[in-house]
């Protein structure tokens, strides 16, 4: 099995190198057949990498402990579900997954452009193959997933306990990877646009929807990470401002900025150089993120074991930064078109604000993340930059951004009359002001929270009203009415309504984040069996502990009876999981989710065989809306990305010249 995997990886590396060479040579010597060979190689690459992943999966499922990775990350007692997940539980295996996703994107690009071949395709392919070569070199070199042990142990160590505790492990890394790796696509096409002869800036139109899809994946990945932190780690929160968490947030912020600024380029031909910088920056930040995760640079709950891949990652990151921004510095000046807008109160201006605020947050988070390292490198002092810092520094720009989220969609392109704007602002502003007033009178003490709630209401109402007004106006011509017609109108304008829906989802998430950050309550209570205590209006009674023995762990389950105002509300069962390989138990919290608040219980310690137990209780208001809001954001993104029917290009000879003018339809796609 290990030989199959190793050879598959070597084959993949060879194919990637061939693809890179073929793309470059075909371009320079103007040989379209060579370029097409580079394109179709992507399918072979995908097959090879898939075979390698399949080999690892087979080894895991068959308990092939001769493989070092299987011995370290799986065991006979591990349930099959988690054996599959062990593929990405640790550094080496997750690099296999990374390569698979990258090969998948290459194949998707190859497939997408099988008939229509833009001039930027060869260089874009070359860049993607170069990235693939790097990651394949990583798995063929320092990170050896298929390394074997001299003597196969009878049983494996099993996955890290924290990573086999919850099925969310199944989806959090894959979605994050789909997002991170996907940023290679806009990067590749940006480089292609820079290097090409015509300095084509139509790369933006080509990959806009790809970038939107990648954004959706990143959003899902981040949400799942937050959900995992909340439901699995048991500390009661969903975001710890961990360096690796921050590093996953940074590309998302830049990608969001990019999705907005490309609209300025599409419509007004502006910000061409800026968009190039954003595309390179997003990919560089994604690479930086994986560097932090694997290079053991900053301490994090995510850091994999120390490995030799760190220096290679650093080299690659330097190459990406120097190459990408160097190319921009050297060549982008020829693309520059002077920016021009018609009015200050216009959508264009709001996008400028959007980009600058998002980039401000990005730089602040980046600064905070690397600050400890910078201080230690220069002065030797050790400082920490944790949650309170990030909260205090990102809230002001985020509040301003929230304001733009409401005003921006109301501003028309090229500006409009002030009366129309004020008319549209009336309802949202009224809603926001009413909420702010109510909260102030109701006794809320945190001004930032009050402002955030008000702005969220403003944003939600503004965007929903826009969706409503647009759908109603679109329905009018046909004279039909009712949900099917509304749905039809919604789908017809889905690019715009998808975006508005994302804003609504973000407003919901903002409400959830503000509520849970400022209004949460917690308490540590030690209870003897049979006794009860009060917390936040609930009566919690510790009924006892039972022990569950499972093949891979022992679970101590505590039973808590929950009552409120005398009414029995059921049971909560926080537990402690004892794994043989871990010196400390891993807690699993028990959560009662409600529309207004979550009651959250985790057991911190048990004494005297369960006679006494120490619990930590949280009342987290609004957390459910974080998942709902996130879901709405993703739905909005999916709605916006759904392809419109593309005009079929006229039939062409099978292989045409590399130079080709893009059909006009692409601008809408």
């Amino acid at each position, binding site marked *: 099995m290990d030989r199959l995997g190793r050879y598959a990886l070597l084959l993949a590396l060879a194919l990637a190198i061939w693809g890179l060479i073929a793309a470059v040579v075909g371009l320079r010597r103007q040989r379209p057949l060579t370029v097409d060979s580079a394109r179709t190689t992507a399918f072979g690459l995908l097959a090879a990498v898939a075979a390698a992943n399949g080999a690892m999966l087979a080894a895991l499922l068959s308990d092939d402990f001769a493989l070092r990775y299987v011995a370290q990350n799986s065991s006979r007692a591990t349930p099959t579900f988690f054996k599959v997940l062990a593929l990405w539980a640790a550094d080496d295996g997750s690099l296999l997954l990374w390569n698979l996703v990258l090969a998948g994107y290459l194949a998707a690009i190859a497939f997408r452009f099988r008939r229509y071949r833009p001039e930027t395709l060869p260089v874009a392919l070359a860049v993607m193959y170069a990235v693939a070569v790097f990651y394949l070199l990583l798995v063929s070199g320092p990170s050896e997933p298929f390394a074997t042990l001299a003597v196969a142990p009878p049983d494996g160590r099993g996955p890290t306990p924290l990573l086999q505790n919850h099925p969310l492990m199944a989806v959090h890394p894959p979605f994050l990877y789909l997002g991170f790796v996907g940023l290679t696509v806009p990067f590749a096409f940006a480089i292609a646009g820079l290097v090409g002869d015509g300095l084509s800036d139509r790369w933006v139109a080509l990959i806009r929807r790809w970038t939107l899809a990648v954004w959706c994946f990143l959003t899902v990945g981040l949400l799942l990470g937050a959900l995992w932190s909340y439901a699995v780690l048991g500390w009661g929160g969903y975001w710890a401002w961990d360096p690796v968490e921050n590093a996953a947030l940074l590309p998302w912020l830049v990608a969001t900025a990019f999705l907005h600024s490309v609209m300025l380029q599409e*419509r007004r031909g502006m910000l061409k150089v800026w968009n190039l910088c954003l595309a390179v920056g997003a990919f560089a930040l994604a690479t930086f993120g994986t560097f932090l995760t694997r290079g053991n640079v900053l301490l994090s709950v995510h850091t994999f074991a120390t490995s030799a891949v760190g220096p290679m990652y650093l080299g690659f990151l330097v190459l990406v930064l120097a190459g990408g921004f160097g190319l921009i510095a050297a060549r982008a000046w020829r693309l520059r078109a002077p920016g021009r807008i018609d009015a200050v109160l216009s959508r264009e201006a709001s996008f400028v604000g959007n980009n600058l605020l998002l980039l401000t947050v990005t730089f602040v988070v980046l600064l905070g993340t690397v600050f400890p390292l910078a201080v230690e490198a220069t002065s030797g002092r050790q400082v*920490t930059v944790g949650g309170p810092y990030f909260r205090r520094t990102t809230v002001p720009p985020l509040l301003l951004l929230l304001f733009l989220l409401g005003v921006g969609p109301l501003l028309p392109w090229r500006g409009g009359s002030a009366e129309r704007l004020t008319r549209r602002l009336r309802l949202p502003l009224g809603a926001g002001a009413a909420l702010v007033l109510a*909260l102030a009178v109701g006794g809320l003490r945190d001004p930032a929270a*009050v402002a955030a709630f008000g702005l969220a209401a403003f944003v939600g109402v503004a965007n929903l009203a826009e969706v409503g007004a647009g759908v109603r106006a679109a329905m009018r011509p046909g004279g039909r009415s009712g949900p099917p017609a509304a749905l039809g109108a919604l789908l017809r304008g889905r690019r715009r309504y998808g975006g508005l829906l994302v804003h609504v989802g973000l407003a919901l998430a903002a409400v959830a984040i503000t509520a849970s950050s400022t209004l949460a309550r917690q308490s540590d209570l030690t209870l003897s069996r049979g006794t009860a205590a009060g917390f936040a209006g609930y009566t919690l009674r510790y009924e006892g502990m039972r022990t569950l023995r499972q093949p891979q762990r022992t679970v101590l389950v505590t039973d808590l009876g929950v009552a409120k105002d005398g009414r029995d509300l059921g049971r909560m069962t926080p537990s402690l999981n004892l794994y043989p390989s871990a010196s400390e138990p891993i807690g699993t919290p028990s959560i009662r989710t409600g529309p207004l608040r979550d009651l959250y219980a985790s057991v*911190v310690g048990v004494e005297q065989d369960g006679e006494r137990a120490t619990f930590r209780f949280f009342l987290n208001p609004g957390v459910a809306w974080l998942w709902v809001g996130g879901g709405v954001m993703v739905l909005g993104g999916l709605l916006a990305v759904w392809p419109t029917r593309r005009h079929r290009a006229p039939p062409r000879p099978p292989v045409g010249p590399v130079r080709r003018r893009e059909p006009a339809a692409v601008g809408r796609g």
Partner: protein
Amino acid sequence: MTLRPARAWVRRPAAGLAVLLLVALGAVAAVAARGPAPAATPTDRVQAIASGLRCPTCRDLSVADSPAPLARQMRNQIAEGLQAGKSPEAIRREFVAAYGESVLLVPPRRGVGLVAWVAPALLLAGGLLAAVLVVRRWRARGAAAAGGPSATPRTSRADRALLQRALARFEEDGP
């Protein structure tokens, strides 16, 4: 534009908006002026200090959030210190004497840590300034390209209304 019954505040929508905005801002300012809630119970005061300290064993979390036993014992020590009358600053100093500056969850505001606190404010101010300058420059170029406002021929009211209706339909139908 459809005609509406001429209510007073409809005729001056901007004034209505200004009122709403003032109400909202005033409410937020009032909340800010009222100040944060005083730490009610001793537990709150412990949490306030603990949430500024980093748990030495589970490194991502504050001492307030961490379920680790060491964090619990640190909270107990904070509680004892508060009961003994020590100031929060003195308690923090004790932990810094044992664990070093990195036990503080945020960089101290003196010395090199000041950079971490000043930079975000500068970045935000710089970003806003850049946004304003960029928009103004673009607006100026846009006006210049259009030949200046004085060059625009005056359109009739009816024409403008027609234009507004067409624009409205264009926007509502989507891009």
